[in-house]
């Protein structure tokens, strides 16, 4: 408060001084004008010059006076709030959640998440992000969790200039396994998560309707080797050491073991308004049991200038290998024993989106996934979506999904979805699938 007051008092003082100077100069010019003496004429000209410069300074200060400094919140983090709500109508009963938490979610509305996103520079060396979410669960209760909380060391204390743009990330963050896992629900171009992400990366509810995906707890390094020179292409490398057992294909009891994940991402721009990105990511943990995942991703976008029509096409494919203990009858002893068996399910999705106008985007997605517990159990989902932007801060989406599944309780379900997203507070980066 003292800072603002001091600033204004100084400015007001300066403005008053300049006003007095203007008045004094005008008076002096009045007295000196009309004189024939050459010296006096020059003096008048100089005085007029001074007067004009002082008037310009005065105008500038008055302009600055309107730019009130907000000293009170200058050092606060940038805060953005995201509200995501959705309603669904189903053709049959749909359950989500496990065990005692299982509940019906068909024909209901949910405030799926209320996220508060804080971002700030901690000091010249580190940026920090904290995202706290209140999420409504299938049983209608609200849970609070730290969606992400991490720091990025962008400038090393010893080596002032890091090789290959080295940065170090530490904390809890959405893992770079594919590109859709990096996005929070409110930034997705669809109303549900891809089935493969739910099945292999993580989901408390087991349902693609609620927030899902994998947030790792650990640390990693990010590099950008300069192999493309001046060409409009880049290669990004990441390697992370994280706590094992937190990914859905992993073993929870292994959480005292390290797991490893990495990603190689390629990005290029070509023919002016086309972009292509492709990546390979992997996850590995070996504690009591082995769990590994290989992800392939590709994303193409075309956005011509001067028209509000863009195209985005992409997909992800995951190959999983996980060991699980399975009860089997030993052929020699005829006793039931637990044996390690490896499952190798695969799953992925393809999607396409077309921007019809400034406000409207239309898209479709096809999912295919094999169960992580039994690769013979398959699920297919076909979905269509229409998204409407009133502005970048308010988005409405309607979607229709149909499911074919070897899981009897899921097979044949058709779901109509309506989703609303509200964004307020600090200006967030736009979701990547939006082009203007």
């Amino acid at each position, binding site marked *: 408060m003292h800072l603002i007051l001091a600033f204004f008092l100084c400015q007001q003082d300066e403005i008053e001084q300049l006003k007095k100077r203007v008045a004094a100069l005008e008076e002096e010019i009045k007295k000196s004008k009309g004189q024939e003496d050459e010296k006096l004429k020059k003096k008048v000209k100089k005085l007029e010059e001074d007067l004009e410069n002082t008037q310009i300074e005065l105008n500038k200060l008055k302009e600055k006076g309107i730019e009130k400094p907000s000293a009170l919140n200058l050092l606060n983090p940038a805060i953005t709030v995201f509200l995501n709500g959705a309603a669904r109508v189903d053709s049959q009963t749909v359950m989500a959640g496990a065990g005692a938490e299982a509940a019906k979610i068909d024909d209901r509305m949910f405030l799926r998440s209320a996220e508060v996103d804080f971002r700030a520079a901690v000091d010249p060396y580190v*940026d920090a992000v904290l995202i706290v979410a209140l999420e409504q669960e299938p049983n209608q209760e609200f849970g609070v969790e730290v969606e992400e909380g991490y720091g990025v060391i962008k400038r090393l204390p010893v080596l002032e200039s890091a090789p290959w743009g080295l940065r170090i990330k530490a904390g809890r963050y959405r893992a770079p396994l594919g590109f859709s896992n990096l996005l929070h629900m409110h930034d997705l171009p669809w109303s549900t998560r891809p089935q493969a992400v739910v099945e292999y990366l993580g989901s408390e509810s087991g349902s693609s309707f609620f927030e899902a995906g994998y947030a790792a707890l650990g640390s990693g390094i990010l590099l950008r080797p300069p192999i493309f020179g001046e060409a409009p292409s880049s290669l990004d490398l990441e390697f992370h050491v994280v706590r094992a057992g937190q990914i859905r294909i992993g073993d929870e009891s292994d959480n005292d073991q390290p797991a490893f994940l990495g990603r190689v*991402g390629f990005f290029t721009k070509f023919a002016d308004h086309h972009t292509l990105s492709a990546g390979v990511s992997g996850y590995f943990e070996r504690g009591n049991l082995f769990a590994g995942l290989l992800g392939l991703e590709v994303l193409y976008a075309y956005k011509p200038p001067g028209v*509000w029509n863009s195209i985005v096409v992409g997909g992800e494919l995951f190959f999983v290998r996980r060991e699980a203990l399975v009860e089997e009858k030993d052929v020699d002893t005829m006793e039931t024993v637990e044996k390690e068996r490896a499952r190798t399910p695969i799953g992925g999705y393809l999607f396409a989106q077309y921007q019809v106008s400034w406000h409207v985007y239309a898209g479709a997605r096809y999912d295919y996934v094999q169960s992580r517990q039994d690769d013979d159990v398959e699920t297919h989902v076909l979905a269509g979506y229409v998204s409407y932007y009133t502005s970048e801060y308010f988005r409405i989406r309607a979607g229709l999904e149909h499911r074919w599944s070897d899981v009897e309780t899921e097979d044949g379900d058709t779901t109509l979805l309506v989703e609303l997203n509200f964004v307020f507070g600090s200006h967030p980066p736009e979701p990547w699938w939006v082009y203007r």
Partner: protein
Amino acid sequence: MKKMLALALAMAPGPTESQESKKTVRVVTTLNVFRHVAEKIGGGRVSAAALAHPKRDPHYLQADPVMQKTAGGADLFIQNGRSLDLWANDVVQHSGNVRIQTSHGRLTASHECSVLEMPRQISKEWGDIHPEGNPHVWLDPLNLKQIARNTHGALCAVDPAGRATYDENLKLFGREIDEAMFGKELVEEYGGEFLWRKIRLGKLDDALQEDGAAGKLGGWMRKARALKGVKVLSYHKTYAYFAERFGFHLVAELEEKPGIAPPPKHLEDLLDLVKREDVRIILNDVFYPTDAANYVASKTGAKVLVVPIDVGGVEGVNSYVALIEYILDRMVSSLQ
């Protein structure tokens, strides 16, 4: 360990005088106009690249990996500021380049520029307003001179050995803008400083009349006489500075509120205004669709002009002088 490293670095040979004199400062900018200014001031000591395509809306770009990679090699990063190119923060943060994260490696070009349309109330109710005032400052040549001075200061800080070059180029570029603005003859007679002082106080015409020099006015100011008091519509609040400097009057925007595409009802309401005010021109930025502008023009007889706002936004507009010339020429010829 740290002490040994510091000692080793201190003992390592620094650049020789000839190496310093040949140094190339790598400048990365958000907009092409800043790249152009950096090259003008930097001359042979600077290699500059712009991240934004001049035909794309600079409000809504995304910080892609290629932008981050490009910024990763920069000695100096220049952005507009005033909440126009917020995506620049993402570029810098993910660039892995410590030189542009702090201290003098990063410049906000609009610093100390004269600012219009500072909002008294800030709320998203008013659309996607810019809380630090209208950010399209570079479209006023006087502000462009301030941007050039800011760029000069930043280059001197990053490359002190190049000061003499930057000083000379700043003078030359300033003269180039002055002559384009007022005409060579008038600048030679009165000096740019005098003319800018008069124009800032709205006294240029009177001063020239008093001296009998009104006929000597050349350059953009001479061309802009034809625009004095002309009523103009624009798609977005892009041309406030341009209008202020060259004397035409912006009556409204096709956007109902900033960042919100024109709804049909708003366009219908605008038709009355356009007819009543005798709006002659509709300025449509090159990256906005022209449907709304064409609709209003078809009902009112106003002329739609699709114009660039950045260097390179249209073929042949390869400099700041060419950019201002292009817009002025299109406007003036549309009135004939």
